């Protein structure tokens, strides 16, 4: 059937064309801002390093070499070695992998818990909403890092527990975001229409409301990934995350702190990796948010 003979299909084709144009506009804005472009490039670099870590690291991040302890940067060890003679470059590269993976873990877990709670609260409203949101408020009343610290300590020090603890502290932001969207969406005409057509509550909540919450959730995740990396590194730094000699940026800084007056490279490079990766994702997140919500463009 030719497209123009059916008004519904025509509408759909028009809508698709509009979406394509909008996407082009977003991408144009994203690349048009030099800071966002830098963020995108650097983020891509870190993601590639994380995925292909074994290709980038020429040495074993855990291999000890006592005769080469605390060696300064050289042709053999570009970024020097640590107190066990381990190659710092290789450790920073493998650290990228664990940092990005755990950050992704935090965001996935936090957004899943937050979405479930926010969607329930927003869709059902009434006392369900009131109860869930007051619980959310209680979690938000803590400074996040302090609560994450308490939770991680209670679960016991390990990278996985640090991830779990941070996710358990972060879900309220997603719950609040999704609840707001759900409240706004549930009175929209298309949800009304679905209800009239006899769709069940669960189907409406998932197919019609959740689907339309995805963009803000993804934007929020892109804004949060830098902070997730930072929080994990901080927990590791105070001994609540990865334990040495695991190649993890935060715990590498802790180890390097004992030597920083004479062997500055041990503490400098993992810290620099945290700094650059967090900055990359922050620039990208800011760029995405600006591109998607024109109100913020200035």
């Amino acid at each position, binding site marked *: 059937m030719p497209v123009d003979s059916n008004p519904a299909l025509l509408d759909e084709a028009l809508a698709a064309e509009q979406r394509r144009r909008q996407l082009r506009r977003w991408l144009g804005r994203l690349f048009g801002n030099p800071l966002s472009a830098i963020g995108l490039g650097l983020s891509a670099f870190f993601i590639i390093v994380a995925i292909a870590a074994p290709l980038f690291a020429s040495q074993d991040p855990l291999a000890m070499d006592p005769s080469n302890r605390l060696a300064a940067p050289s042709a053999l060890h570009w970024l020097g070695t640590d107190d066990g003679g381990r190659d710092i470059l290789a450790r920073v590269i493998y650290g990228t992998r664990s940092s990005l993976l755990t950050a992704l873990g935090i965001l996935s877990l936090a957004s899943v818990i937050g979405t479930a709670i926010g969607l329930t609260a927003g869709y059902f409203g009434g006392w369900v909403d009131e109860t869930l949101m007051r619980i959310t408020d*209680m979690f938000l009343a803590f400074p996040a890092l*302090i609560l994450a610290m308490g939770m991680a300590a209670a679960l016991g020090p390990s990278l996985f527990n640090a991830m779990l603890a941070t996710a358990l502290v972060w879900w309220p932001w997603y719950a609040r975001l999704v609840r707001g969207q759900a409240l706004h969406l549930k009175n929209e005409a298309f949800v009304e229409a679905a209800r009239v057509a006899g769709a069940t509550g669960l189907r409406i909540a998932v197919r019609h409301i959740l689907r339309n919450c995805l963009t803000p959730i993804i934007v929020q995740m892109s804004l949060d990934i*830098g902070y997730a990396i*930072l929080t994990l590194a901080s927990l590791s730094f105070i*001994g609540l995350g990865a334990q040495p000699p695991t190649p993890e940026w935060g715990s590498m800084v802790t180890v390097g702190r004992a030597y920083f007056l004479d062997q500055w490279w041990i503490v*400098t490079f993992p810290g620099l990796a945290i700094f650059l990766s967090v900055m990359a994702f*922050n620039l990208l997140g800011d760029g995405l948010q600006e591109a998607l919500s024109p109100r913020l463009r200035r």
Partner: protein
Amino acid sequence: MARYILRRLLLMILVLFGMSVITFALTHVVPGNPARLLAGQHATQAQVEAVAKLYGLDRPVLEQYWVYIAGLFRGDLGMSLTTRRPVLDDLRQYLPATIELTTAAILLVIGIGLPTGMLAAIRRGRPVDHLIRFFTVAGVSMPIFWFGIVLQIVFYRNLQVLPIGGRLGIIDIEPPRVTGAYLVDSLLAGEVDTFLSALIHLILPAATLAAGSIAVVTRMMRASAIELLDADHVRQARAKGLVELTILRRHVFRNALIPTTTVVGLQVGTLLAGNVLTEVVFNWPGIGLYAVNAIRYLDYAAIMGVTLIVSTIYVFVNLVVDIAYVVLDPRISYGSAETSGR
């Protein structure tokens, strides 16, 4: 407005109750056996049980919570397993150092963040604005503990102008304790040398702690000032020939302060959390360092005490900020003002 404040107070009580449940649950319901830890690695089962009994760790959870909450009202936060002193005494000893450091950081945040944000807004799109923007992104991306170490390398190791850590030099004598803040106490005692030493020791930790928040406040100030620079009433003021400086001061700066106040209030939470990291780097004997030492030995009462005191301060500061907000800006309706911060 009285009704709003009352509502806000009731909400705070609810939040404080919730916080006590969360901190309690964290330490009593989750894995990890404090009694075994306290009794030591080589203790027999009987010894562990005796210790559990001594500290009430063998009672039902609800009863333990009841004991805990009843204790809270008497100011009893339990005994620290590491220092073997009441947690309240420990907090009393270490809190002033933390408050001194946090206050110094807040002053830096306000003193640097507000003018820098204004400058960026006035010079919007110019090189200065781009430079400031770069620094604000860098500021929020910097791992605070690493930044502190970099400052130590530069100012202690290389330039040798500032001390590496601690609150006073080795030869300095602590001023007689009145408030616990060395800057204040040394002045009260008239000890100028001690005052100067305390001030010098405060520079690096305060700068480390403040960096991230300065960036956030600068950004907020820039955004709200830019919005105001385009606003009708500012254009009107300009049209009637008001001096630019007067416009900036009276119409832009003062109004931009309103949303920025909230952000500064929220930053207090960030600063309190950042204390933990800063105090470890600079060996600053506040509750952050105390908490990290407690974590090392799974000293639950101490961890719970720090979490609770920090969160209570945070909740209280937010209450004050929210009330200040409605007082400052008469346009705000007294509905539920939402606060959150990381």
